[in-house]
């Protein structure tokens, strides 16, 4: 079996081992632990340099969906002070698959909205695996409108396999909820910056997933359909998932090339899950100036530029 055919969990085995050693050292009283940790980190880097160039799009999908990957609430805990979560869409219910609230980002009140997956089996079920129902999109919009009332910037974090395909979701207007958000987001007066932290699953991601700027973590993806869904429909074969992943061109570098996203945020060696603190630092380093740039514009300028930005996306042959 060559490297390409192995799944990412096999590829990262050595890195996982080294990471475990680092964790043990961090807890220990070893007087030389600092030196030892930094040399182990160097080992991770070298190991990663061997793996990284050969990663396929499907490997990146596995990193984006890694069970240890930092989720929305992890980012909030690290980057936001005094976060106050709010609940409910005031129409039907509260959707745990989307977290929304207010907090201080670099001392400025901001609205923070993001898809939330669960870590344990119980949490995963409670969060519906990060797949929102219409209430989630409606809650998100309610919080965006509140941000607009107080002239606060909006940060959204994208990490969902997609909007939930269920009977009740359809009954309560899943499509309408997403469509309405798209229209309203384009008209918001306040700055809005999107960070794709994991899975950017189709309309379910887009419903809170465009704005003044879109940033993408290096090992995330943003796609019209999951590689599995596409394999089932176009190839009628689940084994074609690798081909489908290669064809869909959903990686950060592809989106940058299409002019859809603004910046790629680098991840630490091994992926975001290997070093949370470094990941948060990197996100902050890109997010803060991007948000600031948007905040410096007048509402009219910002709205105009947001429209122009989305307006020019698409590749056509005009004869």
């Amino acid at each position, binding site marked *: 079996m060559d490297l390409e055919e192995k799944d990412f969990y096999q590829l990262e085995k050595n890195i996982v081992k080294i990471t475990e050693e680092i964790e043990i050292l961090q807890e220990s009283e070893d007087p030389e632990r600092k030196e030892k940790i930094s040399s182990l980190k160097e080992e991770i880097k070298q190991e990663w340099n061997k793996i990284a160039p050969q990663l396929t799009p499907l490997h990146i999908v596995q990193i984006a969906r890694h069970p240890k990957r930092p989720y929305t609430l992890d980012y909030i805990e690290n980057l936001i002070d005094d976060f106050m979560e709010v609940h409910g869409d005031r129409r039907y219910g509260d959707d745990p698959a989307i977290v929304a609230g207010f907090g201080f980002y670099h001392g400025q009140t901001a609205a923070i909205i993001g898809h939330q997956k669960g870590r344990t089996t119980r949490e995963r079920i409670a969060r519906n695996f990060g797949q929102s129902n219409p209430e989630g999109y409606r809650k998100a919009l309610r919080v965006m409108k509140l941000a607009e009332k107080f002239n606060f910037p909006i940060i959204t974090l994208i990490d969902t396999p997609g909007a939930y395909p*269920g009977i009740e979701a359809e009954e309560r207007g899943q499509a309408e909820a997403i469509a309405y958000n798209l229209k309203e987001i384009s008209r918001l007066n306040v700055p809005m910056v999107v960070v794709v932290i994991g899975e950017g699953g189709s309309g379910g991601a887009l419903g809170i997933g465009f704005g003044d700027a879109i940033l993408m973590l290096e090992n995330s993806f943003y796609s019209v359909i999951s590689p599995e869904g596409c394999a089932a429909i176009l190839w009628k074969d689940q084994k074609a998932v690798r081909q489908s992943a290669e064809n869909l061109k959903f990686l950060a570098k*592809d989106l940058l090339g299409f002019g859809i996203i603004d910046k790629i945020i680098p991840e630490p060696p091994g992926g975001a899950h290997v070093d949370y603190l470094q990941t948060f630092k990197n996100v902050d380093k890109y997010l803060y100036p991007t948000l600031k740039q948007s905040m410096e514009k007048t509402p009219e300028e910002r709205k105009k530029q947001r*429209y122009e930005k989305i307006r020019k996306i698409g590749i056509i042959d005009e004869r």
Partner: protein
Amino acid sequence: MSNLWTRCNNCRRILYKQDIFENKNVCPECNFHFRLSAPERLEMLYDEGRYEVFDENIYPLDPLHFVDSKKYDDRLKENIKKTSLVEACINAVGKIDGIEVIIVAMDFRFMGGSMGSVVGEKVTRALEKALQERKPIIIISCTGGARMQEGVLSLMQMAKTSAAIGKLQDAGIPYISVLTDPTTGGVTASYAMLGDINIAEPNALIGFAGPRVIEQTIKEKLPKGFQRSEFLLKHGLLDDVVERKNLRSYLIRALRLFLNRFS
């Protein structure tokens, strides 16, 4: 069976083709609404069937170099040849009961009516033309959703078209969305659900997720009539279900009301 006769997909009765044709492609026996092509749709709605098309110079490309069992590029060529269309929608302008109206009619024959960069661009241009010329606009959807072969570029057309609708809102230009069988996926989750009024033909499949995907996810059989027009009407997602034979008169009434034109 000679080609003068056909069988209705719904009631299975053998019918004289001319009878269906004269009944606007609706089964005279069971009222089943057969799918219409975009040109048939436009001809049926405009006064004396007369209209002008615009944006016919925009052709699709294959920016992802997408290959499944066939190259996307080849699929496009085949579809253009098979349908004599350049893409999955036609932009038109003409008069309905004397009122100048822009209509975008989607055509399911072209790649399942899917929305890629060209459909997104044409819908946006039609909306922008409506804004500039202050003409009401009607979009008739008939689509399986966003086009997979153009990947995330198709996905972003949802935001692009919805943003253009936002501009009509500020300018007070009427937009009527007509959903026909089928209207699913990324088109439903963007412009099709954003009309000032949303109406549908009877028994049209309308939804976000496809019924098979839902069935596989919940591992249950779906209730009868699920995701059909009447189901959406009941759940408050449509303003009305309108039979094809009444569609033109319904649109005339709606346009006159929204334009405040009594006589």
